[in-house]
């Protein structure tokens, strides 16, 4: 089932939790809502479920306007961060709950309930746990019970609120790939909320990045990671360094020296350059475009990361270099940019964010289409 969110806004006592959100979730799609805490992602999920009523805007389930439907009428499967299992019921009764509370007319026969719950528990690899109580299960098992319970009512859409937030790292990783497999198997339209970008990028068909009640960008994990469209997304996803630059006549310059970047139609004025740690090259000589001093170096997994203070403002730039290379602290180096994005600050209080095609002219260009606006 397709879900269309149409200009949803939500205010809590004068503060805007959601500020005009539009989003369409395709049938069978797994969409991740990613954002820092307070970005409104959980509020959006609860509005889809009907647990929260929007101040304005509409929700469509396929072509039906579901805005006025109650939680019960919406028939969503909702998985809570803290599982929200019924402690006084066995695992079996927890999963059967949604079927048992149906009105007599639509309630399945007892034998059908038993069969359906058993097959769901099998699907969740919980076949032997039906008679246990939630308190006797581990966190990962409890979350799988919660998932089985949500699926038992054959929901139109599966909504998961930070589903792995309360689990430790190893279980979280395991459950993550397991959920992806389950989604491929069952094909439910699913929306999940997370503040963990790795989780969002690994699990989702598409990711919606939220910030301060607005959707900053919606796209495939590739698009979100490789071509962030706003400074917020660039800063929130992955690691990046920011360098304050100025734009004059379409040329980008740092402390007066023009950077060898492909010129583009950009408004004059101050701007910020965003670069990922892997998108630099560092050399001892002076033939790079930016000069700086190495201040820190440390080993991070397979690479070595150095921090270089650049420009008059001595902005710290993080650069990944192969682990076998080392630099002396305090040594001058010169840096070249492989890829970067610049966001001018022109415009009122809110910066106008323009994605530009900027490429270093000193190096062979690869994938120029990546930086199309």
């Amino acid at each position, binding site marked *: 089932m397709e879900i269309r969110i149409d200009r949803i806004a939500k205010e809590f006592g004068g503060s805007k939790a959601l500020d005009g959100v539009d989003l369409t979730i395709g049938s069978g799609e797994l969409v991740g809502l990613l954002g820092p805490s307070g970005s409104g992602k959980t509020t959006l999920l609860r509005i889809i*479920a009907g*647990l929260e009523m929007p101040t304005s805007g509409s929700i469509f389930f396929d072509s039906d306007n579901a805005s006025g439907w109650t*939680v*019960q009428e*919406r*028939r*969503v*499967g*909702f998985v*809570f961060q*803290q599982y*929200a*299992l*019924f*402690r*006084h019921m066995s695992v079996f009764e927890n999963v059967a*709950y*949604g079927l048992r*509370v*149906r009105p007599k007319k639509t309630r399945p026969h007892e034998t059908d309930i038993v069969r359906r719950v058993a097959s769901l528990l099998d699907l969740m690899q919980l076949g032997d746990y039906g008679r246990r*109580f*939630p*308190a*006797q299960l581990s966190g990962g098992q409890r979350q799988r019970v*919660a998932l089985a*319970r*949500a699926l*038992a*009512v054959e929901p139109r859409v599966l909504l998961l609120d930070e589903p792995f937030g309360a689990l430790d790292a190893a279980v979280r990783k395991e459950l993550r790939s397991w959920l992806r497999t389950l989604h491929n198997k069952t094909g439910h339209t699913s929306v999940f909320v997370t503040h963990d970008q790795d989780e969002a990028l690994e699990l989702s068909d598409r990711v919606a990045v939220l910030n301060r009640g607005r959707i900053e960008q919606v796209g495939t994990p590739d698009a979100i990671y490789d071509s962030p469209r706003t400074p917020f997304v660039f800063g929130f996803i992955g690691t990046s360094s920011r360098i304050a630059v100025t734009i004059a006549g379409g040329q980008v310059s740092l402390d007066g020296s023009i950077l060898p970047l492909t010129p583009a139609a950009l408004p004059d004025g101050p701007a910020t350059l965003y670069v990922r740690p892997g998108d630099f090259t560092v050399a001892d000589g002076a033939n790079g475009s930016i000069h700086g001093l190495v201040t820190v170096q440390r080993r991070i997994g397979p690479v070595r990361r150095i921090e270089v203070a650049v420009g008059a403002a001595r902005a710290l730039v993080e650069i990944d270099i192969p682990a076998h290379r080392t630099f002396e602290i305090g040594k001058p180096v010169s840096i070249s940019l492989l890829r970067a994005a610049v966001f001018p600050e022109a415009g009122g209080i809110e910066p106008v964010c323009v994605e530009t095609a900027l490429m270093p002219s000193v190096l062979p260009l690869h994938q120029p289409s990546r930086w199309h606006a």
Partner: protein
Amino acid sequence: MTQTLSVEGPLRPSSGWRFVKPSVLPGFNIAFGYTLLWLGLIVLLPLAALVLRASGIGVSGLIALASEPRVAAALKLSFGLSFLAAAVNMVFGLIVAWVLTRYRFPGRRMIDAVVDLPFALPTAVAGISLASLYAPNGWVGSLFAPYDIKIAYAPPGIAIALIFIGLPYVVRTVQPIIVDLEQDIEEASATLGAYRWQTLRRVILPSLMPALLTGFALAFARAVGEYGSVIFIAGNIPFVSEIAPLLIITRLEEFDYRGATAIATIMLAISFSALFVINLIQAWSRRRFGDA
């Protein structure tokens, strides 16, 4: 030199039975000794004296005394009305606790404080005011008098007094549990298609059951032992509105000490069995909840 890993020390895992589990907290001996001494001095010693005093008449004597019509009527009245009062308090105390925790309204703190009044009020004061209110010429009693319904100086009056003194016990035991009930659980129930009353019946009430039972037990125990407020409103007519504690006083005034302690012992036995059964039910439900 070879070094052997030894498991000697104060926290060495013990294979045999131990009186107390090893703990890093010091002071078990003194704390436990103090607990036993205190319990023995304050609780067990008077009870033991009571039983000792009553034991003179023997078990058969106790049974004979309990089946004496006037004693039997008093015991039935005391325990029956205490049970009724505790049951009423369980229902209405739950509603009061629910309203006080779930809604925000002006005067909530005031009402919350009023709940404790039956704790604080001297029971005789409560008895006198209840009696004057429910007497045939009182504000409330006069409303019922034309229909020949007698509240004060009859069993209904006793029930009202027992409900009055028992209410805070249920409210104060259930209140913190309602506060701790996760809203998630109700929301989960709603997303699964359950309507409000289904959530209440299938999810909320079972979660509150252990606390409700505790509140019931406390209110019941208090009601059984209540004397001060009841004697003013009961009318104290033998076979009709005479409670067991009053009967004990009567026996004492007749210098029938053995009879008084015997009735007290019977009350003690019945109360103890009732509390024991309630505790069993709780232990059973707690085991299912898994948070024992």
